[in-house]
């Protein structure tokens, strides 16, 4: 493999969990809910997906468990922000704290908290087109070839998507038009949560085959940034994910160069985060947020 195709393949791979997370977060935010539970949801998806796969011996069961976790987390966010109408920032952070705590707790019980767990045999890569760059996990294929177009189509061309966009822009109008704001927001949160769960499980069930503490390492926050960077459009969000992943892949390669050996790799690892912040500074200036962003809805 050449340097370029190597980086390109790694970019697609590294972008995969971000695509799931970003699309999931886009659904939540288009419905008017900032879901800061994403970091914890991805973390719980990674851990419980791994746990289920390890216990059952089936990667599919693991994936389903991660999806279930995500849906549960979405339902919790729904209860807090839709039914109770609590502050979305605090509800999301609380959800993240709770889920990370729960995963770490069970991890400790189950595996005595050793830093790295016994591995499972993760999903193998497939090479559909015979090109090395496209030797990728099925989850990566699904992300780019199925999830992105379908998610766009559902959001822009279906009743559900129309309702989601309406409750996120102007819930009063949606309500007056006969759309149930609470229902629609719950559905968006459940879909979003499921996708976040898959995004987290990608790490344990595909990329690594094992679970390590702090495995998400702020990538949920990265997804939040990518949604803003993408101005709540799925296509642009995916571009952002590719940008982050490309910088990530590049810094991994840079480490291997002798001339960079003096630089602690952690500083290079910080590079993608800094690039995302800079990308926001360039592209996120005074963007138009969804009209009902952060606003709970209750009839007057």
């Amino acid at each position, binding site marked *: 493999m050449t340097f370029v195709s190597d980086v390109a393949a790694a970019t697609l791979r590294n972008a995969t969990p971000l695509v799931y997370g970003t699309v999931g977060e886009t659904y939540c935010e288009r419905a008017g809910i900032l879901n800061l539970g994403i970091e914890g949801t991805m973390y719980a998806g990674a851990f419980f997906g791994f746990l289920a796969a390890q216990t059952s011996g089936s990667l599919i069961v693991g994936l389903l468990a991660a999806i279930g976790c995500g849906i549960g987390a979405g339902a919790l966010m729904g209860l807090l922000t839709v039914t109770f109408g609590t502050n979305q920032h605090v509800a999301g952070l609380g959800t993240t704290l709770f889920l990370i705590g729960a995963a770490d707790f069970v991890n400790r019980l189950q595996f005595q908290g050793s830093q790295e767990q016994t591995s499972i045999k993760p999903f193998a890569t497939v090479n559909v087109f015979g090109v090395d760059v496209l030797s990728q996990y099925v989850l990566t294929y699904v992300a780019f070839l199925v999830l992105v177009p379908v998610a766009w189509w559902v959001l822009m061309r279906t009743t559900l998507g129309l309702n989601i966009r309406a409750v996120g822009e102007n819930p009063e109008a949606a309500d007056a038009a006969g759309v149930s704001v609470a229902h629609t927001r719950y559905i968006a949160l459940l879909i979003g949560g499921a996708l976040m769960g898959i995004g987290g499980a990608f790490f344990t069930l595909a990329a690594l085959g094992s679970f390590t503490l702090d495995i998400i390492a702020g990538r949920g926050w990265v997804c*939040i940034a990518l949604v803003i960077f993408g101005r709540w459009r799925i296509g642009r969000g995916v571009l952002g994910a590719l940008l982050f992943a490309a910088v990530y892949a590049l810094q991994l390669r840079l480490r291997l160069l002798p001339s960079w050996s003096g630089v602690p790799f952690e500083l290079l690892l910080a590079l993608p985060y800094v690039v995302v912040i800079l990308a926001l500074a360039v592209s996120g200036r005074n963007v138009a947020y969804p009209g009902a962003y952060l606003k709970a809805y209750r009839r007057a």
Partner: protein
Amino acid sequence: MISLRLEPRAAPARWLGLAVGPAAVVVTFILTLGFVVAAGASPIQAYRTFIVGPLTSRYDGLEVLVAATPLLFTGAAVAIAFRAGYWNIGAEGQLLVGAIAAAWAGTVVGGMPQVLAIAVMIGLGALGGAVWALGPALMRIILGIDEVVTTLLLNPVALLIVTGLLNGPWRNPVTQFPESREIAANAHFPHIIPDSRVNLGLVLALVLIAAAWFVLGRTPIGLRLRATGLSPDAARFAGIGVERIILGAALTSGAMAGLAGVSLVAGINFQLTDGISSGLGYTGIVVATLGALTMPGVILAALFLGDLVVGADSAGLELGVPSQLADIVKGALLLVVISLLVLRRNRIAIRRGTEAKGAV
């Protein structure tokens, strides 16, 4: 069919305001029972160890104060920012940068008199936290970029810098462990209670919180800050320099969080280690929310969570309940509190579907 609905109360229920704290604790413990049982412990015994345990011995009781010290800083940091309507969720990163600054300062102040050495550490630590808070604040004020995401993203960056330093240039040359050289002895915070780890950091935290309480409630600046947080548009209309207030609150918040890092380096660890924070910045959000964003509330909440942390450690040792239970309880407590606060303003109305038929 029975449906539950929230209906607004005419006036917030005052009695519930007082009951929220204790009620939240009880509800949280009920909700987290499953985890204790899963760990094979008796819930009652576990929660006794958890909450009452630390208060039964002098050592553990004083450890509660030790555990509460950084939380006082981060809790106040978050509360100050939130009161100004600035969602600083970067206390974790600001704490770490404060700790880095203190760890560096601590190694170069060796020759100075103790008072000066400590002052330099405090100053540099606060400065470090403020510097880390500056970028997101400027991006918010100048470019209109949501500070939530930028402050959040800088947390992993700060953590990576810490581990990068510890694995690289600052690696302890003697032990080869990823921890920095110990700070000079004259830079140690003096202990204020004999035979305990309670140190100057606690006093510093309480003094600063008292100052914050005075400024918020008793000065024109505090009123401007509160107005900005409650309604930035109305505040701007009334002639308040909203941008300056937000910048000031963000930097003060960052400095406070940075001091949490100083208190750890100078009071407890005497060096920088990569596990130095383990979420104290995020816990600050729990403290601030639990304390209703008021300074007296922050003190109570920090003490309570300090109690929880110490209790969780002994629960881990004595009962085999993983100490991560404390993290679960923190998260759950935060969610329960904000949910109960909704009940202050709303009551639950129970309606049966049949009853409503025919009526509108």
